[in-house]
């Protein structure tokens, strides 16, 4: 997120404190004084990780501190899982297979690598899926399982972390 605050002592610390208060983790702070900016404001970019559902609380806390939020760029798909699909991927409409995940709204295919051997031979692809939450990821994988069964594709799932 990009923040605008008063350029006075203690302001930056005041802006960072609410982040730890809501259980967030600061990954980077980019603080650049623009020379042609002659007013007394400071622009700061902060990259952070937040537990789900805590963003609104953070925004409210920052406002209380008199910090103006210029922009929030949210990367909301946090869970990533890679699977391998083997079979007649093109003949069974690969774009439809991908679309079944993308159209859920809670998960999407973010990377697809594919090796295609001779025509009529089965092809192999590695597909990386991103989802909002663990539950959504399970649902996305379940969709892929169903589609694989329908299209006679072999789906190779990762072995989950032992939990």
């Amino acid at each position, binding site marked *: 997120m990009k923040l605008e605050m008063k350029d006075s002592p203690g302001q930056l610390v005041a802006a960072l404190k609410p982040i730890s208060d809501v259980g967030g983790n600061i990954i980077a702070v980019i603080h650049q004084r623009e020379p042609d900016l002659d007013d007394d404001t400071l622009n700061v970019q902060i990259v952070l990780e937040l537990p789900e559902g805590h963003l609104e609380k953070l925004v409210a806390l920052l406002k209380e501190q008199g910090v103006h939020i210029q922009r929030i760029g949210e990367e909301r798909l946090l869970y990533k899982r890679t699977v391998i699909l083997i079979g007649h991927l093109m003949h069974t409409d690969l774009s439809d297979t991908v679309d079944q995940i993308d159209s859920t709204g809670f998960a999407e295919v973010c990377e697809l*690598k594919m090796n295609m*051997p001779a025509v009529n031979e*089965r092809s*192999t692809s590695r597909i990386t899926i991103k989802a909002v939450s663990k539950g959504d990821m399970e649902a996305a994988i379940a969709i892929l399982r169903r589609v694989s069964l329908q299209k006679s594709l072999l789906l*190779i799932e990762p072995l989950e972390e032992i939990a």
Partner: protein
Amino acid sequence: MMNVALIGLGSVGKGVAAILAKKDLGIKITGIADSKSGCMDRNGLDIADLLLKKTKNGYCGDKEISASDVVAKGDYDALIEVTPTNALTGEPAIGYIKAALIRKKHVVTSNKGPIALAYKELHALAIKKGVALRYEATVAGAIPIMHMLEHGLAGNEILALYGVLNGTCNYILTRMADEGLTYEQALLEAREMGYAEADPTYDVQGIDAAIKLVILANTIWGNGIRLVDVDRTGIDLLTADALRLADDEGCTIRLIAEAIPRKHIIRVSPRIIEKNHPLVVEGTLNALTLETDLAKEITLIGRGAGSTETASAIIGDLLFIKDRYVQRA
């Protein structure tokens, strides 16, 4: 001294006989039968001579004496049942085991068929007769998983288990990953090495691993799971590309048997797994990870097959019975 009768004189049976003849374990073989013949002597048989006869003639004893005769009439404390696995009916092994239990004889078996198909009935019969039915050798060869569950992890609740339980598949997958072989090439190599049967279906389609998973699940949870309940996918449709694509990500592919009762998962399937994961073992090795409430994760790695390795599990069961029931050391 404990007397035993040995039914089955294939690779495992020969291994057991040779070890009992060689090591002074206080166990005497008083009956032996193969598929064609049998022999009994309450004073102990001459094992070296019988093994020599078996090699020379293809059978070890008197053709007038059958395996059933040895089971029914032999003078023994424990029956060692090591005939080949019949995954469909479990016979004739189930019959031998029942007959021995009814005679109040302990039974040790390496045979997956009876344990996967008739565990509940056989277990109940053994309890009723006050004798032991032990089958350490049915799962993961030399790895003492049953002993660990029964003793080392006593008092633990087993939450999940994950295993590499089929050496043939693991060999094929190791070779595909290491050498970039196709499935067909790796299978051919496994056959040449003697790791795969002429008909590899039972191994490569995950049936063998699923049967072992059924045995483990029934032993741990007593949940009556059957082979048909296992969600099963084999490795026979894997491509060399799949192994390469996994390798790009620091991963490989292994046939994993898993059971997680709280998630209603009981399945055997090829899985993408990080190369440094403890279950990624090389060649024909087996591995088993248990997740428990007290001990947390425990992984065992060892040889899953082989004459002497499987005999190791059988000897362990026999000595347990000897110590517990027959004669305290």
